[in-house]
């Protein structure tokens, strides 16, 4: 059984304020309860397969200049920087 308090705690970690959205908790709980079906499949011999690619197959990690100055269109742009809210 999924604990509702735990759902609220995780929501907070995901920066979702559930104060006015308590109906979400019940619905998320229903979805998690459906996921319990995963307890009924035998996966003992299964390995997790991942897709791998060698580093030299990847695009070069190099700076691509962008002259569009997108940052200047932000509401919180202040001449040379973006103003973020205060951290307590």
């Amino acid at each position: 059984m999924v604990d509702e308090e735990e759902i609220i705690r995780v929501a907070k970690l995901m920066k979702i304020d559930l104060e006015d959205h308590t109906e979400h908790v019940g619905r998320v709980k229903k979805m998690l309860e459906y996921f319990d079906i995963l307890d009924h499949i035998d996966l003992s011999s299964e390995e997790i397969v991942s897709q791998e690619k060698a580093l030299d197959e990847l695009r070069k990690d190099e700076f691509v200049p962008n002259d569009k100055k997108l940052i200047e269109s932000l509401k919180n742009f202040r001449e040379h920087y973006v103003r973020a809210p205060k951290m307590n």
Partner: protein
Amino acid sequence: MNLKTSILDYINDVKSGSFTVEEFISATIQRIKDVDGDVHAYLSLNESAIEDARIIDKKISAGEKVGACYGFPISIKDNICITGSKTTCASKILENFVAPYTATVVDKLQSEDAVITGKTNLDEFAMGLTTEFSAYGPTKNPWNLKYVPGGSSGGSAASVAADECLASLGSDTGGSVRNPASFCSVVGLKPTYGLISRYGLISYANSIEQIGPVTKTVKDCGFLLNIIAGQDSNDDTTIDNANSDYLSDIEQGIDGKKIGIIKEMTSDGLSPEVSAATKDAIQDFEKLGANCEEVSLPTIPYTVAAYYTITSTEAGSNLARYDNIRYGYDLDSEGYEYNSYISKSRAKFGPEVTRRIILGGFVPSAGHAGKYFLKALKVKSKLISEVNSAFEKYDFLISPTAPVQPFQFGEKIDDPVTLMLLDYNTVTANLTGKPAISVPYRVTDGLPIGMQIIGNSKNEKSLLQAAYALESKTELPEVPL
């Protein structure tokens, strides 16, 4: 002028001078004005579409080289970026986001002289199956405006079905191209993972989502695939398709091919109408010379749970960027504390996206990952083995695209598990990376039913041959709009 035409017929007509690109685009824009107030397939229109058409007409009359598309009108799902145009993902959080770059798929289309008509509606961030989760109101099914068009690419499918364009691009994470294609009686393809670049597609679940074409005919699907498929240096997950021509030999037929009818997708859970249509489709495949037999893939009952676990996890991570600082609402930071500022902007997410983000934090978290996320990844591995084994014996696997026909608005939105299970027949192709196509097969009681054909990886060419063969056995009514 016949707006119900296919892309290929349109191109022949423009080449022969039956009408100009401008005339056709103008008629299409007029059609949008006439019907989209009811259908609501579009979230925004390309104001320069007619000017774009004139430029192509000038090239044609000057005898200059013209791109393969000859100005046919195409709509684009509003989670695919086009420089200078709004890309909202049908979310309030991106209400004012103007894309600073163009997706590779759109770039390829524009290079070949396609005309973009506008951006189409979707479930917010492509999370949903009905478009009821769009922050800007749902799209209506052109076959019956009281019914959902499917989703999440509901706007794309409806725009094609309602003759508001000749084709569209959608994205398919768990069936989001095929499901609305089935509900709106158009063709929808989810290609092999990596066949089409995702550069410029706003990320939801990167490991399984793909951009896919929505068209009126299977041949048009092959034509579009020829233009948009292939490797892209901006997307390292793309694969080499060896410049395949998906249109040539499309009429080859499927005589002697072996087809596996997926037992788990054709037994319980189908509506009587969908079940009857499926039986008839199997008979049609046999008449076309294919050998059909039932095949069991026992992992399928676990795929929906695995799919939602994996996609929620990736969504939780991808959507962390909408924090009001990097992307999003652009609220003045003055007077806010850091955490409350971020939470305030994230309250702009709609209900389904909010729930998926919470799920995406829960299922991979310490203490829960073993029960959910790691098991889901193992289900994916097991499913891949099963499906690969099936393809050692069969050329194609088939099922109905959706277990039910379109339903009325509000009918299923309150039950999250019922909604999730609408994906039952489609998520397998996403989890395994295999290509799958929905072909319009029947209209029963005025509502469409589509058949799904799944092929082996990179076998889109033969998949389209099978889809074309099935399409040739159907005779469907015109959309009553």
